[in-house]
């Protein structure tokens, strides 16, 4: 059946293949070359395959959960109360026809419009950013890409404010005999630093291209410290090795790399010498864990003690076999193992306390995050990456506190909607739920404020030509719905702030 369909796809109209290739030229190569010798458009602002610890964000960006208006907390199951706050009226988003905002300072930003703030029931502030070029939010600033060059701006008081303090971190770095290329912009704005790694496809000589196959990716951690991660792919699997930057980040030639895992060995072999090392998790300043091995399929999780310079197998530490994923949560680790005796790809999940070595099962035989509206036969969990998850059993959804194990039943879930994923904010106290994407965008949004024990429900309708594709948190109290129009040549972002 599928074989026949795939064969049939192999003979589809050339135009569809060409359409795809034409787009791929621009989005993959960063250089559109319709004609030999002519570079028509340069676009280095492409997002590429996210590396390890960034993927959870991508994995949960699309939310497909909504709560129906009938959502109530049944006293029979009440352990704590969630107040439902339904926002009045329906937010209707229409085309913006306004002159460039007053804060616009140059021609590059002249095509970006910012709507005045609109209050929705004094609960949410909403602002629309429309742009005649690709624009995307990045944390709490915006990035626009024009002819391959990224520019940055902020939305302040209904105006678009250009960010000028940008430092380019670019060049070849040699570490432990391995040459790799770094290309990042460090953006400083209002005391905060943002890092954007720039992907550019080098078309020069073979030797230089080889160097650029290895990349040093710059990042900044919670304490403001910079890291460079040597990143490469091989036949064995993914290699990501983080190095702390202790030198002056302003100058790539003086940036001093500190390997905090230097003396850690597994079976007598230095960590950095394993061909596969990925899925890093920072448990604390002292402890980290990662997946390490000679090949991706045989790699195992280890915990690293950066003080005692020791590595310990997580299987040994937790007495669990076949560990498939690990996530740090405070002083605990959430680990997932393959369930035995199930046909589907099911997992058992545990919380493991690092101090007491106490282990508690959180979920048993669950499928993770996959949408499947055909069956309720298996239990499902949507991990948020934070303390709270959504768990669905026999069609009933529960909010689960990973630390306490408490489950709170959410009654009245809309049968048409799935608990595919849910988003948690940076501080881990608010969950963002949404209906599926429809032709008119996301029809319904739910913001669950855990400490306040309130769920705000907003109905909305997008009447513009833009096509909504993702929703995500920007800051701990701001989230955005991104959309594009004209095949990605223009953008629109609905930015919501919880008041």
């Amino acid at each position, binding site marked *: 059946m599928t074989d026949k369909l795939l064969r049939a796809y192999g003979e*589809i109209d050339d135009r569809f*293949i060409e359409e795809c290739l034409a787009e791929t*030229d621009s989005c993959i190569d960063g250089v559109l070359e319709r004609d030999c010798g002519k570079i028509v458009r340069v676009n280095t602002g492409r997002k590429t395959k996210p590396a390890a610890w960034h993927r*959870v964000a991508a994995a949960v960006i699309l939310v497909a959960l909504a709560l129906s208006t009938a959502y109530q907390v049944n006293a029979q199951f009440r352990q704590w109360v969630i107040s439902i706050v339904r926002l009045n009226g329906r937010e209707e988003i229409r085309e913006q026809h306004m002159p460039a905002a007053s804060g616009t300072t140059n021609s590059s930003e002249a095509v970006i419009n910012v709507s005045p703030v609109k209050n929705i029931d004094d609960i949410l502030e909403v602002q629309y950013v429309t742009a005649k070029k690709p624009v995307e939010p990045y944390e709490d600033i915006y990035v626009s890409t024009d002819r391959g060059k990224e520019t940055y701006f902020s939305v302040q008081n209904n105006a678009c404010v250009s960010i000028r303090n940008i430092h380019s971190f670019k060049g070849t770095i040699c570490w432990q005999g391995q040459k790799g290329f770094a290309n990042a912009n460090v953006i400083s704005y209002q005391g905060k630093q943002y890092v954007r790694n720039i992907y550019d496809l080098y078309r020069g000589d073979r030797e230089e291209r080889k160097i650029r196959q290895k990349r040093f990716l710059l*990042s900044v951690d919670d304490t403001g410290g910079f890291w460079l991660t040597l990143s490469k792919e091989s036949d064995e699997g993914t290699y990501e090795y983080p190095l702390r930057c202790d030198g002056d980040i302003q100058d790539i030639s003086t940036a001093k790399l500190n390997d905090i895992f230097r003396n850690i060995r597994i079976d007598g072999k230095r960590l950095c010498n394993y061909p596969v090392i990925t899925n890093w998790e920072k448990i604390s300043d002292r402890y980290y864990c990662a997946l390490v091995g000679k090949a991706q399929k045989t790699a195992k999780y280890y915990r690293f003690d950066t003080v005692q310079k020791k590595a310990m197998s997580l299987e040994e530490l937790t007495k669990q076999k076949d560990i498939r994923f690990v996530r740090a949560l405070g002083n605990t680790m959430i680990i997932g193992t393959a369930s035995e005796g199930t046909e589907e790809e099911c997992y058992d999940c545990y919380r493991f306390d690092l101090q007491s070595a106490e282990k508690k099962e959180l979920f048993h035989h669950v499928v993770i995050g996959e949408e499947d509206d055909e069956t309720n036969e298996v239990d499902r969990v949507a991990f948020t990456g934070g303390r709270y998850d959504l768990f669905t059993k026999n069609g009933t959804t529960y909010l689960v506190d990973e630390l306490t194990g408490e489950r709170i039943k959410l009654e009245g879930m809309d049968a048409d909607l799935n608990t595919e994923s849910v988003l948690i904010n940076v501080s881990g106290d608010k969950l963002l739920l949404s209906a599926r994407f429809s032709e008119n965008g996301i029809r319904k949004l739910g913001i669950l404020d855990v400490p306040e024990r309130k769920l705000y429900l907003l109905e909305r309708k997008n009447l513009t030509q833009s096509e909504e594709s993702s929703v995500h948190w920007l800051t701990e109290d701001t989230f955005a719905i991104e959309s594009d129009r004209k*095949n*990605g040549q223009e953008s629109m972002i609905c930015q919501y702030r919880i008041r």
Partner: protein
Amino acid sequence: MLIIFKDMMRGSETFSPYIPTYGMDGERRNCMEDTDIIELYWSRSQEAIRETKKKYDKLCSHIADRILHSREDAEECVQDTYLAVWNRIPEERPSYFRAFLCKITRNIAMDRLDYNLAGKRSRQQTISFEELEETFSDTPNLTEGIELGELTEQINVFLEQLPVKQRRILVRRYFFMDSVVQIAADMNMNINSVKSILRRENRKLRAHLRKGGYGDDR
């Protein structure tokens, strides 16, 4: 292996160094126009194959590799592609030379895959399209009575009426055999968005075929 990650370091947009070889070779700036390459084929100049290889070797290799997951097999497949193009062009004058090459490569790779699987030469070589199987598993006879050409025509009609984005996702997944992760990354989308679109559009295709009288109700 399922991978669950969390930001260890704030503010990093990290990238994989993997560069899909979908696009053109690095030397493409010195390449000939497609029309000129076709002229070379017409004049039976062996320069035609050299120019094709120079310009589109990566593209063809990518397609073959996505299907066969074997560099060696993919290389052989690409060589066979050039020979096939050589043999076909005097009779055909493709309007879209790239697409023409892609189709030939894909078909040769699919044949090779069938051959490998039939002989169980490699158990590793399988193509998994869970979302496709999921949608069509309950209607196993949906495409039974349809000739391949007719099915392609139906798919063409279906693709034609789709928005560009959705169409591009389907073509990348089912023609180029790209992974969901790769499509999401290249199209600036999240993985679940791509998965949802694939599922939704497959359901629409199923409905489209049923509406056309195929399957049980025929």
